């Protein structure tokens, strides 16, 4: 890391320096345009709504959304709703990942078990899990636990299937190599299957963040007590589009942050990927 920076300025040829500059400039342009597009969009929205080109009753407008968020944060309710949803998402995500990985290990451990459950998993995977929402809410309770179970159900089957197929992809010869040292099944899991599958597992996690949030929002729609999903549904019912929009925007920020957290962990722990 250290070396890269110093040598970059020290002994690269003129042509290469120019190349590096051009790449940097290009990157900067992309960033600027990304931000510029967002600002332009918000401005246009605000102007269009103020001049009544569009009906603010249906579209709301940025300034009233900001005002609403400020008001809601003054009485703390926005934080409460966000915290509840984030907590539910994190719990659903964590339990879904741990439980899914554990079940994938069971399938890997016993080929017989894997074959027996294969058709069930395929059907469950194809089923839109949201349809199970009402059942889960009734079984697990119309509260936070019901929402968390809904969230983890949506990601669980995908976690099991993709983690298991990641396990199966590990080179048989590598396993054979460990067996020549006298490795037990647990050691094979620990020394090669698991570490080799970490990239697959991280990719699964990235997909699952989105899925978990779908579960949380659907759960909150159904339970309708608190959280961002509740805020959105409530706003829709009373035709307050600013509430709906505020909910959606905060949701977008929360999911983006959770995704970034995974990316951060990936960069931190997968240094051998270079």
């Amino acid at each position: 890391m250290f070396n890269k920076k110093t040598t970059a300025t020290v002994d690269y040829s003129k042509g290469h320096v120019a190349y590096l500059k051009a790449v940097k400039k290009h990157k900067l342009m992309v960033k600027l345009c990304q931000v510029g597009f967002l600002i332009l969009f918000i401005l246009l929205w605000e102007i269009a709504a103020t001049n009544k080109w569009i009906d603010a009753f249906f579209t709301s407008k940025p300034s009233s959304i900001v005002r609403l968020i400020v008001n809601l944060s003054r009485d703390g309710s926005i934080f409460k709703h966000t915290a509840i949803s984030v907590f539910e998402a994190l719990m659903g995500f964590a339990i879904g990942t741990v439980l899914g990985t554990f079940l994938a290990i069971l399938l890997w451990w016993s080929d017989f078990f894997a074959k027996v459950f294969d058709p069930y998993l395929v059907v469950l995977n194809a089923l839109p899990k949201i349809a199970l929402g009402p059942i889960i809410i009734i079984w697990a309770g119309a509260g936070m636990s019901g929402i968390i179970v809904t969230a983890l159900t949506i990601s669980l089957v995908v976690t099991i299937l993709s983690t298991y197929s990641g396990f199966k992809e590990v080179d048989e010869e590598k396993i054979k190599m460990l067996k020549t040292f006298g490795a037990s099944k647990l050691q094979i899991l620990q020394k090669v299957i698991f570490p080799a599958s970490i990239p697959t597992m991280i990719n699964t996690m990235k997909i699952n963040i989105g899925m978990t949030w779908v579960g949380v929002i659907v759960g909150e729609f159904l339970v309708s007590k608190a959280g961002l999903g509740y805020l959105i549904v409530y706003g829709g019912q009373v035709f307050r589009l600013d509430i709906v929009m505020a909910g959606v925007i905060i949701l977008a920020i929360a999911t983006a942050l959770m995704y970034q957290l995974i990316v951060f962990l990936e960069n931190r722990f997968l240094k051998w990927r270079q």
Partner: protein
Amino acid sequence: MLTEKFVEIKNISMNYHTLDGETEALDHLSFDVNKGEIMAIVGPSGCGKSTILSIISGLLKPTSGEVLIHRKVVEGTNKSVGYMFQSDHLFRWRSILENVLIGLEIQKKLNEENIHRVHKLLDTYGLKEFKNHYPNQLSGGMRQRVALIRTLAIEPELLLLDEPFSALDYQSRLAVSDDIAEIIRKEKKTAIMVTHDIAEAISMSNRVIVLSNRPATIKNIHDIQLTCEGEANPIKCREAPEFRHYFNRIWKELDVYVQ
């Protein structure tokens, strides 16, 4: 050299069963390997060479017959046998040192003495500066040397090498086969090496077994006596006058069976 029988292969046969049918891979093979010798096995591809090594290592149970190492029947994997594959199978998430220690880790023998010995092996065989590197930073030849040291780390008495150089380009292949033959001799190991390269077999080993097409039977066993002066390294030995003679004979034996 002492001619003490170290490995005895007694009348082994191997049939594979799959849903498509039965494959006869080995047909009543018998041979011995003496202590301290390098034995090469050559044969047409698919004739059952890897199967022989798998049986000797205890990964596979023969359909009939038995293998004795130190006069003890092989049952399951054995800590005195080290196996080296065509591909190095280094773990990309482990540093070179961590890769080399994996055998000891699995056998729960990670003590100070053993770690010290592994460090010395890496130092001796030109990997001193690469201990904390990752496999993708090393050349193919170096990686293969790391794989050998990983095998040597558990102090096996018998080494099984399955086409250990075939993943390398010609130049590194010559250099690495030279290195590895030297390491095996220096560490006083007994080795059985499968290869499809006749020149490699003759230059590296004491005896060469020629196998027939599948199901493998022993076609011939050649005692290799090369007069290479001074340092008897495999590259030099290729210039010995007898080399060509052995080469032609083995080549003919293999060729007859290709038809």
